[in-house]
């Protein structure tokens, strides 16, 4: 019954139509009375408003002896306020279909606010109350602390999380707080108190350095007026801790963490690399990596997944911000293919470092990324991401146009020179989380120096 029939040549790939005109969202800016910088865009299609309020109270503001303090303090904003219980606020928000959540990163603590625009006024009042009137009740703190500690125990059982955490610590050092797990360690979190959190809040949460990104169907004037509610907020500010020098990497070392009976091994291979920039060498390095490990059809994924069947997915990437950057290749692979997976990774990285990409791959890169922006600004969340990038690095809204110019102008020689420069396997380290009794001897045969760590990244037996 099948195949079907055709009165035309199905083997001919249909042509593409003319390239669409891509309109980058129009960005507006404003400043509240107390100096919070607002960056916004209109999304007229749906009557919703999405807001991200960021306070420079992330992990870089906490001390090494109080790891986890930034996160637990932010979590207290979702507990009781001076006037209301958390249950009352939750009930009211949900009756409006609104949500307010908190999160913490290296630099910022954030309030993420999402609401139907018809309910925005009351939602913003609640957000302001959460931001400015947290109660820091003892029992709320104790509960958050207990949950954090159990979460940390749980995370250690997750091989992928462990592999990434340990990799990050090795690259950026145990004495830079941002390189440690976001939630802290069990040892440090156990010692924190509600007054620590209150003190951190009192000295860190304030409008200086805070900013807002907003996407709403409302015109800029109306939304800026509504956001003025945050203009009366007063509070202190704390600078980020000074960077500690990054450690010398023991290049070539394979760091191993035992996960007994693991069906899969988590592999991380990489090194420190460029800090973020929007249109410079970092951006070009991302372009360079696209055919090695960035696309589904990249060399690494085609080899390890599509040809060998070792993994559900393998990739590599450059990532960074304004004070740190790294290159990382990674996959979760079937346990019995661990050694060969590492060999395949190393081979792909070495080949790419030495010979770079082909003309065909360069064309694939330019085509793929050249039109990708047609779907880059569709949803409020996407627009918010674009606004955050502008706010993070003080970019001009046309930075994406400049990126496209860099992309179109990029030559093979230029990108391959970056591969030669940034992909030296001789500078990389390896992290493997897997079943020691099954893997140790075979991994040893690879010839790399091996160090066994626990899930916190401490050397086993020391």
């Amino acid at each position, binding site marked *: 019954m099948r195949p079907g029939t055709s009165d035309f040549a*199905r083997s001919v790939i249909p042509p593409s139509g003319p390239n669409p005109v891509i309109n980058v969202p129009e960005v507006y800016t404003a400043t509240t009375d107390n100096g919070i910088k607002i960056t916004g865009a209109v999304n007229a299609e749906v009557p919703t408003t999405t807001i991200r309020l960021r306070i420079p109270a992330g992990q870089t503001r906490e001390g090494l002896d109080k790891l986890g303090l930034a996160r637990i303090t932010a979590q207290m904003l979702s507990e009781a306020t001076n006037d209301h219980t958390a249950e009352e606020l939750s009930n009211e928000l949900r009756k409006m279909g609104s949500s307010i959540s908190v999160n913490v990163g290296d630099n910022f603590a954030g309030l993420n606010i999402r609401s*139907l625009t018809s309910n925005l006024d009351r939602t913003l009042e609640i957000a302001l109350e959460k931001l400015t009137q947290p109660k820091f009740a003892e029992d709320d703190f104790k509960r958050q602390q207990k949950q954090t500690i159990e979460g940390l125990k749980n995370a250690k059982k997750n091989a992928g999380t462990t592999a990434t955490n340990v990799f990050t610590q090795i690259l950026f050092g145990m004495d830079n707080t941002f390189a440690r797990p976001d939630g802290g360690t069990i040892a440090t979190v156990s010692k924190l108190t509600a007054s620590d959190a209150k003190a951190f809040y009192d000295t860190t949460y304030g409008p200086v350095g805070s900013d807002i990104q907003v996407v709403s169907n409302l015109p800029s004037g109306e939304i800026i007026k509504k956001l003025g509610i945050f203009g009366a907020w007063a509070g202190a500010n704390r600078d980020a801790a000074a960077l500690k020098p990054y450690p010398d990497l023991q290049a070539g070392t394979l760091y191993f963490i035992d996960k007994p009976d693991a069906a899969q091994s988590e592999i991380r291979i990489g090194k420190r690399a460029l800090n973020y920039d929007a249109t410079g060498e970092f951006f070009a390095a991302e372009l360079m990596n696209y055919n090695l490990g960035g696309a589904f059809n990249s060399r690494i994924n085609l080899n390890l997944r599509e040809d060998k069947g070792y993994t559900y997915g393998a990739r590599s990437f450059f990532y960074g911000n304004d004070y740190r950057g790294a290159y990382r290749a990674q996959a979760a692979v079937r346990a019995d293919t661990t050694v060969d997976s590492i060999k395949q990774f190393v081979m792909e990285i070495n080949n790419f470092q030495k010979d770079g990409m082909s003309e065909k791959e360069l064309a694939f890169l330019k085509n793929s990324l050249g039109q990708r922006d047609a779907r880059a600004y569709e949803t409020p969340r996407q627009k918010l991401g674009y606004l955050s990038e502008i706010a993070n690095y003080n970019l001009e809204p046309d930075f994406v146009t400049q990126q496209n110019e860099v992309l179109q102008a990029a030559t093979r020689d230029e990108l391959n020179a970056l591969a030669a420069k940034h992909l030296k396997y001789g500078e990389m380290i390896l992290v493997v989380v897997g079943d020691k009794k099954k893997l140790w001897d075979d991994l040893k045969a690879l010839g790399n120096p091996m160090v066994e760590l626990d899930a916190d990244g401490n050397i086993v037996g020391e």
Partner: protein
Amino acid sequence: MVMRKFLLVTSAILALAACSPKTTIPDVMVAGFTKVETVSAKSGEIAIPYTKYEMDNGLTVILAPDSSDPLVHVDVTYHVGSGREEAGKSGFAHFFEHMQFQGSDNVADEQHFALITESGGTLNGTTNTDRTNYFETVPNNQLERMLWLEADRMGFFLDAVTSEKFETQRETVKNERGQRVDNRPYGLLWEKVSQALYPEGHPYSWPVIGYMVDLDRSNLDDLKRFFLRWYGPNNASLTIGGDFDPQQALEWVDKYFGGIPRGPEVKDPVYTPVTLEADRYISYEDNIALPLMYMSWPTVHAFHGDEAPLDVLMDIIGSGKTSILYKNMVKPGLAVQASAGHNCAELSCSFTMLALPTPGNSLANLEKIARASLAEFEERGGANDDDIERVKAGIVSGKVFGLESVSGKVSQLARYEYMRGNPDYIGQDIARYENVTKADVMRVYEKYIKDKPAVILSIVAKGKGADIIKADTWSMYERNIPENSGEE
């Protein structure tokens, strides 16, 4: 339509629809198609405008133009998931999804990904118990190419399959299972509960990703039979959303899909109630830090009249800080996490409670509190106005947020189409929550949960077998695997 309480919400939407040019409803026609219906933006209601057609070969085509961004989203949904599988052949629907990315007669291996990526697009496929879908979001100049790709694997797939591709994808699926199930803490929870909840032979009794022994036993002939049985145009719907010319789109659909013959007749799966005679206690040891207790009651099926009041009950018992489980478990520090769920699929729903104790507290105690929390719901007189209000508001705002992306709109239309045979269901969907009364919530509690048997699972850390709630009262049977039935 009842829309009393959400006038603010809906009028805001209407205001937008009125001033926006992008809600023009396609009214186009091409030979070989029958127009089923056109739905426009409606006064006072949330709606996604579209036109639905049926092709002569049975393919359902839904066009939902929206020119707000220069992109199109194409979705092909086949009404086949693991719920159509036979005992002993688990995991086939999902495995087949993988094979659909391995090329077809006119599309080379890897070319599917390459063409879409190269055009700046993105793609994926997913499989659940009830359907398999394939979708692409691409710049608006790529629509014809997407239709060509989707038509090729619908109509011209079999000759391109090789045993080599079959073997590699079988390994990839095993890796997927390793990563998502076997190597992940608590990853086996759903599989263990489903085994105990559904009778042997019920297609929800096995996991969507399947048992690897079943996949190992399968061969290319099974794959081909599966394709011929379920991947006909008459068991599929093609939904196109975004910035495109409807007349042109219909002509392209005709060109690429018109020559694909109808497959065997497909009937909607038949619901049979799932019941337990007594509580089933089960347990297993896992590489985890914290133990977990999970309770699951069979209830109704998706879009059954009692689904909405059961959702309200779920919210009262265990959604967020307003819930009884939060008050009784999390707030006093007995549990790190506690929640309820009501998971609904085409052939069955289950009402669930989950909790992870803080150190020093036992699973058995959490089970006791869970049961006491249900009793408390009854004693306090059931649902109150706020409870119902919260759930309704969540449904309405969720539907509005779902309209933020073309892909959100398209998948909503596609889901209503395979579940209800009617893409225009968003209003009715909201109405069934609007209409829930306090009496409904109490009624479904008494009918499906109160004193009704459940599956109760304990997951404990390796070597901590003594910490389970109580000794297993049920164990997994030796599966009865039918002889391969050969050609259908």
